[in-house]
């Protein structure tokens, strides 16, 4: 081929597009089907390019925080990255809570922000903010694109970094002039990052050491977390195989619920501050702890220097920075959970490992004794709806369907985590690390976008839900029949509980003296409003909620003074659980404990 011919061929390979067109093209090349967003001056060119596009659905939210939480719900229920498009300035700053939430819970998000034109950056221009500066500590990585010829590469890198290794949110900040300029578009296949190489393959030496510890264990326990969910459905399947092969008990963090079926007899329930008695005691007394995809969070460990004092600890995590961060471990494994679990099973089988059956039998006997405490029990009432009862009925009346649960943050979240039985991964979406009130409603919208025919329920509190209530309008616009099931106790329940336990019953500003009429509010949005005030009417109302094919706000009036138990008080250890507020067993909270959140 002569030189001219070569040039012609190269020219054909290079596609010239405007920056805005590149964004759309890159999203399509990355397989994106839905984006959540809110337009504004600095992203108008991208919205213009989106106008006539087919195969890419934009969901208009009512606030950028809602858009990011919706994308989180979408991501967590599908395993695919959530994509968000917002404008500069307030558009970007409103996204910060969602970005931080996604960073804490390792949720893959690609958030595109508009920015003022490059020549205006630093001029305090209208709707200008230092987006990369503000979002640097709340993203896995971020970019400001100042050359249109870098844009497609950066977008593809953004998807790679968000979705691989330990997943997380990324931000690509795109100035408005870059959206108009034309440049060369490259496809995803031609992009390879200079430095980013996440380690996913386990070292076999540490796998073998882990297997040895497990085979010799007398009182083992699996402690699993959100890392199993993030590693994909195969990791959950392998976890089930390993747990059943060994016969060991298993507990999980808030983030890990669903990776192991809650109906299985080896399941001990959730652990941690509001975990079950048997899960926390098993953690405290075990001799071998197998931590898979969890990070020894303070809500899990309780008092750190009294945490599981006599155990050897195996810790699998894809993020090397989690190893020895809060708790020193004996066998670290830095790898993708599915890959590591596969090797663990392989070596267990090929080395013909056997568990210490007599010791395990005694261990299970001990665990059954703890189970006998029935730490999730509560006093039922005929006159007032107990929040625990409401969750139990919601579970029973929906268990024959595919149901996705999101939550807000507080007592209702803990009751949902304790009582709703999850059988598979990706069906439980809750704000674990950041504890973001207002997460659940928009998250349920994202879940429903991804699963139009499923039953999607936000188990909410009346305080949290008011933080992002405006997204009911989004649900109406797109015909998303989400069910917002509000446990309305008129208090910020968890705040009230802590004020009762730690601050002498001085309920400073935790009671909402004026609440909206949620039924009328639902009607104002065009949704369906339902209310239940007595235990006897609950079942019928829940059935009505399920049967309505429209968004529902369900005002479930519950006992305002109910506390969430069991509980490990701040600064206490796993074996110092409080099972109820019935009388003398309520301990004094230490001065040190009061300092903790």
């Amino acid at each position: 081929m002569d030189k001219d011919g070569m040039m012609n061929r190269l020219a054909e390979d290079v596609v010239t597009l405007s920056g805005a067109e590149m964004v759309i093209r890159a999203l399509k090349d990355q397989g994106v089907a839905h984006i959540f967003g809110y337009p504004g001056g600095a992203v108008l060119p991208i919205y213009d390019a989106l106008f006539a596009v087919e195969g890419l659905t934009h969901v208009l939210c009512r606030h950028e925080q809602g858009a990011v939480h919706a994308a989180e719900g979408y991501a967590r229920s599908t395993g695919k990255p959530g994509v968000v498009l917002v404008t500069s300035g307030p558009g970007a700053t409103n996204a910060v809570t969602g970005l931080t939430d996604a960073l804490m819970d390792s949720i893959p998000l690609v958030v595109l922000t508009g920015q003022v034109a490059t020549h205006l950056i630093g001029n305090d221009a209208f709707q200008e903010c230092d987006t990369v500066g503000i979002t640097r500590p709340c993203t896995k990585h971020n970019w400001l694109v100042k050359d249109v010829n870098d844009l497609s590469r950066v977008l593809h890198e953004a998807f790679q970094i968000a979705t691989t290794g330990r997943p997380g949110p990324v931000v690509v900040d795109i100035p408005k002039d870059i959206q108009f300029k034309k440049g060369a578009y490259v496809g995803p296949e031609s992009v390879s990052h200079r430095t980013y190489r996440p380690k996913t393959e386990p070292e076999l030496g540490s796998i073998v050491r882990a297997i040895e510890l497990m085979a010799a264990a007398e009182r083992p326990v699996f402690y699993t977390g959100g890392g199993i969910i993030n590693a994909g459905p195969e990791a959950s399947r392998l976890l089930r195989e390993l747990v059943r092969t060994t016969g060991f008990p298993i507990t999980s963090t808030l983030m890990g619920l669903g990776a192991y079926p809650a109906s299985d007899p080896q399941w001990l329930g959730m652990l941690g501050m509001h975990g079950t008695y048997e899960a926390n005691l098993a953690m405290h007394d075990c001799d071998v702890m197998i931590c898979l995809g969890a990070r020894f969070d303070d809500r899990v460990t309780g008092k750190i220097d009294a945490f599981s004092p006599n155990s050897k600890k195996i810790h699998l995590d894809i993020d090397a920075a989690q190893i020895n961060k809060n708790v020193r471990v004996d066998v670290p494994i830095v790898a993708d959970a599915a890959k590591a679990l596969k090797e663990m099973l392989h070596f267990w089988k090929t080395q013909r490992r056997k568990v210490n059956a007599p010791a395990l039998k005694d261990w299970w006997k001990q665990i059954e004794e703890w189970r006998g405490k029935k730490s999730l029990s509560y006093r039922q009432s005929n006159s007032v709806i107990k929040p625990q009862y409401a969750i139990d009925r919601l579970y029973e009346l929906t268990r024959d369907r595919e149901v996705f649960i999101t939550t807000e943050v507080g007592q209702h979240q803990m009751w949902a985590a304790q009582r709703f039985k999850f059988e598979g991964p990706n069906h439980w979406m809750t704000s674990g690390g950041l504890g973001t009130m207002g997460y659940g409603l928009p998250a349920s919208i994202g879940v429903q976008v991804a699963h139009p025919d499923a039953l999607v329920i936000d188990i909410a509190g009346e305080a949290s839900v008011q933080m992002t209530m405006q997204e009911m309008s989004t649900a109406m616009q797109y015909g998303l029949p989400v069910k917002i099931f509000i446990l309305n106790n008129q208090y910020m329940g968890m705040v009230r509980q802590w004020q009762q336990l730690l601050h002498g019953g001085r309920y400073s500003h935790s009671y909402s003296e004026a609440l909206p009429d949620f039924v009328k509010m639902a009607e104002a949005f065009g949704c369906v409003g339902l209310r239940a005030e007595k235990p006897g009417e609950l079942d019928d109302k829940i059935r009505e909620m399920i049967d309505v094919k429209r968004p529902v706000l369900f005002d479930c009036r519950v006992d305002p003074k109910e506390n969430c138990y069991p509980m490990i008080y701040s600064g206490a250890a796993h074996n110092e659980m409080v099972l109820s507020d019935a009388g003398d067993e309520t301990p004094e909270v230490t001065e040190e404990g009061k300092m903790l959140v």
Partner: protein
Amino acid sequence: MNTIADKRTRRHTIAVLVDNEAGVLARVVGLFSGRGYNIESLTVAEVDATAHTSRITVVTSGTPDVIEQIEAQLRRLVPVHRVVNWTTDKPGVEREMALVKVAGQGDKRVEAMRISQVFRARVVDTTHTSFVFEITGGPDKVDNFIDLMRPLGLVDVSRTGVAAISRGPEAM
């Protein structure tokens, strides 16, 4: 407990090789401030213009647990190529340069000059009432020199922070 944790705080010199892209220094510095780690000194410059790499040398202090976390958190940053701890990973040599201004007359001026010769400091500016010394050495040597100048009319100090490199033929 699994191990008796070593709670002793020690000074560490850590080199971070990064892609020379916008904001990379802010990522490193933000990591230290955001997670409550201390920076005692910081030295940054591009070291390879064709490869677009910069080298950041951080002197920090902490218990072994804290230092392990600092290194792991640094490795997590996307534009980071390599992280090496010259205090624990492999032996390195480190040097720092300082410009030290001393003002005074009479015996104190003579004594400042005499001490500067002991430390092999160079005089890079002089007036009838002042010297500016350039001193190079490990941070301890620079500290000592500054301490000795204090009673002799020390008025100003500017330090570069530490540059460090491994002993022997290998690169970082």
